[in-house]
């Protein structure tokens, strides 16, 4: 608790005690005044009574008046004398009452102080939780403090920090997207410029050959150049086809099928598709049924195997193995998993974080668009599942395909 609040509390306590004391003091002063138990006062009253009697005897005509005054004074004397008999009890009762009231005030003040302390503790605990959330990276923090004291100001700072973090994240994401698009544009430009430049050069060569005449060597060269231009145009066609396939990934036609059987068929069918790869699959003991579009699943698995084969080839690893394994997983949601593990060189660290984003590839420009994993993940997401990079290292990479479990 701050020094200011403590001082204010103490000041309020002292003020309350002083107020009560003053109130009691006033009452007590009045009481003692009325009390009049001092011997001199009682003696005066006695003399007054005697005087009234003497006056009545000396002035019989007004005896009734004197008697009335006598009775009035005597009533007062009676009160004083009764009070005098109880003086000690009255003082004790007064002191007990005063003590009880002051104790009550102190207890109330103490309770108020304790209540305030508890409230402060609760507020601090809430602030602590918010700070923990902030340190954990949450950006939607609302502490809910309305007071503008130190805790309230810190809470406002925490909320402001979370808002700044959220804004920075959005900017960062935007910049990352921009960077990705710049990278994609550069790749597009290169992919298109290379065949176009080649085709342009070959067309110039063809024109010069046409000017030479109809000689057999020139005709043969023209045929070769024509074929080469055709190849460049085919490359452009393939390039645009990649875009088309990414943009038009069809919705899967889901059917209940045995995942083990599908993977087994694929492993058999493509056993020799990649010379550097050996496909291994240990089918599960029981059928694992999933809702799947078999053709699209095949596309995903072929893509993953393609990537493994290319990685082995690029990094000169020679032969490798791709192993398929099926299992069940319970992480809050019941899932079936298909792990695709290779013993290749692993995913480069600089692209691991954005591996499933379009145009992410470790290959040179002109050798791949980096759309395969993005398309594969889109296919798995359309199945209600997901595709994730389970682990990767220089000893190999494991991709995991997740399928929602269907009731048997």
């Amino acid at each position: 608790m701050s020094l200011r609040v403590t001082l204010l509390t103490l000041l309020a306590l002292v003020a309350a005690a002083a107020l009560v004391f003053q109130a009691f003091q006033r009452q007590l002063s009045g009481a003692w005044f009325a009390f009049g138990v001092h011997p001199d006062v009682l003696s005066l009253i006695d003399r007054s009574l005697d005087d009234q009697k003497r006056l009545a005897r000396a002035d019989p005509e007004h005896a009734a008046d004197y008697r009335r005054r006598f009775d009035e004074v005597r009533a007062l004397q009676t009160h004083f004398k009764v009070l005098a008999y109880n003086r000690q009890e009255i003082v004790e009762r007064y002191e007990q009452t005063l003590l009880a009231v002051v104790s009550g005030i102190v207890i109330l003040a103490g309770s108020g102080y304790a209540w305030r302390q508890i409230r402060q503790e609760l507020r601090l605990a809430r602030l602590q939780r918010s700070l923990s959330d902030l340190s954990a990276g949450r950006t939607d923090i609302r502490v809910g403090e309305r007071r503008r004291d130190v805790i309230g100001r810190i809470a406002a700072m925490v909320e402001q920090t979370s808002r700044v973090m959220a804004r920075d994240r959005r900017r960062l994401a935007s910049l990352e997207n921009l960077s990705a698009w710049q990278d994609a544009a550069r790749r597009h430009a290169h992919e298109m410029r290379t065949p176009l430049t080649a085709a342009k050069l070959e067309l110039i060569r063809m024109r010069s050959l046409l000017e030479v005449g109809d000689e057999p060597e020139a005709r043969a060269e023209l045929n070769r150049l024509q074929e080469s231009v055709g190849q460049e145009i085919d490359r452009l066609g393939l390039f645009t086809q990649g875009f088309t396939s990414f943009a038009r990934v069809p919705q899967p036609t889901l059917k209940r099928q045995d995942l083990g059987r599908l993977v087994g068929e694929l492993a058999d069918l493509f056993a020799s598709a990649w010379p550097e790869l050996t496909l291994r699959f240990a089918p599960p003991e029981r059928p694992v049924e999933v809702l799947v579009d078999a053709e699209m699943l095949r596309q995903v698995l072929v893509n993953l195997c393609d990537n493994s084969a290319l990685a082995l080839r690029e990094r000169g690893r020679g032969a490798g193995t791709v192993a398929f394994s099926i299992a069940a997983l319970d992480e809050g949601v019941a899932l079936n998993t298909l792990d695709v593990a290779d013993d290749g060189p692993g995913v480069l660290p600089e692209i691991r974080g954005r591996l499933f984003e379009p145009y992410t590839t470790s290959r040179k420009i002109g050798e791949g668009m980096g759309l395969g994993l993005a398309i594969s993940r889109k296919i798995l997401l359309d199945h209600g599942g997901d595709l994730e990079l389970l682990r990767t290292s220089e000893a190999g990479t494991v991709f995991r395909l997740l399928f929602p479990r269907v009731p048997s």
Partner: protein
Amino acid sequence: MWRPLRTTLCAVSLAVLAAGAVPAAEGPSFTVGRDGVLRVSGLPDILSRPEVRPHLSTGLTTTFSLRVTATDETGKKTQGGGRIDIRWEPWDEVFLTAALSADGHARRESIPSLDRLAAWWHSLEIPAAAGLAPGGRWTVRVEVNVIPFSASEQRDTQRWFSDSLGQAPPAPATSPQEQATAARPVPANGGVLDLLIATSIKRHSLISFTWTATPHPAPEQRKPTS
């Protein structure tokens, strides 16, 4: 710290006084009439004792509260009592007395001097209990508590004191309008606290006397004293 000690000492002193303040030889006597009424008479002269005498002239009603316990041969106890009020009236300079028996009858007198008051005291015969079997053997214990003021004086003083606590003292009035204003009660600012303090006015016994009464044979049925 010292207050409880003082209170304890006072209580012990009173207890010592109550235990045996008066010699048993000068105790009262009692009769049990054919009507089964136990009458106590011949009360010892306690009015002239120094611990009692000053209270008689205060102008307050000194109350002598009698408590009578009669025990028969079988140990059966019968309780009874009475009350004697004595007040000095300073205007007329007389003692106004009232002897109240257990059956509610009161005997009131105006006595001009202390000597005659002592004689009146000694001559008192108070029907203190009823329903006793005539002719039985009784052991009668008489206890007299001296209370310095009456219940009505207590009530009046409590009311007056409570009013005094709850009201500001009026300023001296110089005009009829001011007198009228001054006559209005000022609102009390602590009613419960005033009540707490005012109710501390209580009637305590100042001193207590205890005797074992000796039997005094009753010749025949007597009319109740009125």
